[in-house]
């Protein structure tokens, strides 16, 4: 894979820098954010607290996705039960009303949770653009450490401010222990 990393300067995907520990990463991310880059990201083996402030991330919209799914679950369950039990085939069951709301609560609850959980899981995957099996970052051997004990920042070449040498200088200044170019 090293061989692919030759001189295809036109296919440059971005620049990846490694940092020694979470603190250096947070400081570097703050620096990158303050320098005005937009298309950059930090890569870590586990979520680091304080990094969202350094990177100035907005609150995830996932809550709303889940809430909508939950509403569909609750509404759908109630409508299904009211229609089937109350209108389509009403039957007298132990003298209770046809539309017996207290007895409908358990199923309504379960379906609300079920749909909300779908919303949370698949909504998260959607927001993260997963599954995505090809990623230029995987061309870097060093990047294997990201799920072990490596802390990285990558700045993509699509960024409006991207200039190869400037980016490298910035990352070097931020204390990167290793800097490499990532090619497609």
């Amino acid at each position, binding site marked *: 894979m090293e061989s692919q990393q030759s001189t295809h300067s036109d296919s440059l995907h971005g620049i990846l820098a490694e940092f020694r520990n979470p603190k250096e990463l947070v400081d570097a991310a703050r620096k990158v954010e303050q320098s005005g880059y937009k298309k950059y990201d930090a890569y870590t083996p586990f979520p680091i607290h304080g990094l969202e402030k350094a990177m100035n991330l907005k*609150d995830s919209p996932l*809550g709303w996705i889940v*809430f909508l799914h939950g509403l569909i679950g609750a509404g759908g369950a109630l409508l299904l039960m009211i229609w089937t039990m109350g209108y389509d085939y009403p039957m007298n069951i*132990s*003298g209770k009303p046809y539309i017996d709301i*207290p*007895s409908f*609560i358990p199923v309504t609850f379960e379906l609300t949770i079920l749909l909300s959980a779908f919303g949370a899981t698949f909504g998260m995957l959607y927001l993260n653009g997963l599954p995505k099996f090809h990623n230029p970052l995987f061309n870097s051997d060093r990047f294997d450490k990201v799920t072990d004990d490596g802390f990285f920042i990558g700045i993509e070449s699509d960024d409006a401010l991207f200039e190869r040498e400037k980016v490298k200088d910035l990352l070097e200044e931020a204390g990167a222990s290793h800097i490499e170019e990532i090619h497609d």
Partner: protein
Amino acid sequence: MSQVDIKDRLTLPDQVNPTRGLIATGVVGLIASAIGYFLNHDQFFFSYLTSWVFYMSIALAALFFVMLQHVTRSSWSVVVRRIPETLSYNILPWAIFLIPVLFGMHTLYHWTHHSAVAHDPVLQGKTPWLNSTFFVVRQFIYFGIWGFLSYRLHKNSVKMDETGDWGLQTLLRRTSGPGIFIYAITVGFASIDWLMTLDPHWYSTIFAVYFFSMSIQAFFAVMILMVFYLQSKGVLQQTINRSHIYDLGILLFGFSIFYAYIAFCQYLLIYYANLPEETVWFHHRLEHGYQGIALALLIGRFLIPFLVLLPKKMKSIKNVVIPISILILAVHFFELSWLVMPLLKEHGYSINWMDVTTFLGLGGIFFGLFFNKFRKHKIIPENDPLLEQSVNKHL
């Protein structure tokens, strides 16, 4: 002498001294209620019991909260722990205020009428438990146990402020472990004694849990209001930060759901099985105006707190959690009325002026005693081993 860097002062400033005003309100309220006793003593006793249980439930839930924090070694709650410690310290004085209830037993509790029991085989079977002597003896046992626990937990926590002896944390924890267990049994039977035996034929095995779920929810509402009251007076403005408010908010939210769960289970099981001796209890509480309170419980104790506090941000916003807490406390009072009042006014609920005077009277005394004790000590446990983590907590 605290090793932790705290920017606020650790005692209540002199100008924050609501004790006198509160006690005065309390005395006026109680005098007015006493006048009420001579006008309509039935109403007086029922109103008094409702208000007394209202404050008692908060003090009891506070005791539970303190013990739970010790057992789980929670660090987040250390900065606010002195408040529940002091609230639960009121349990012992509150035993004195139980005396009017004991004098009113004949009015309040149908099972004290020997003539009624004589014609009622079901009540005859219950006399080993439902007799005035044993009832009073049980109250001594309950208050003895709770008084001991709350006194010991407060005293040693305060002692740690002065001596800085971290070993006391171990003592507090070892008291709390068995304490919670004994607490569960005593509070269970006490709630049955005070409230369930008002209707001596009715029974529900979940009643103790139901009472607990109400109390703990109301307790968190009190905590939130207390924290904001103190902060509005310039107390602990730095030390108690958004993250602590958020934790109180999430507990308020969580216990709103817990309350709804328990209350719904009790309702559903009785409704579904439809046994006459059980459903009659709900029957009395779902007609003649009581259905309005029942609806208010559903909306005010569950739906509104649930929907409003659902987004994460809301749980720490002052202008959101304060109205929600006030709402919950108001509904807590009405729920207790809903449990108690059908015995007095079966044919229509109406609020009586004595409900208000006993509520204000006992409330004034309760919080008067609270502030009296609170200002005598450090307002946070300044030498607690977990204080540092608590202070350094941020959202």
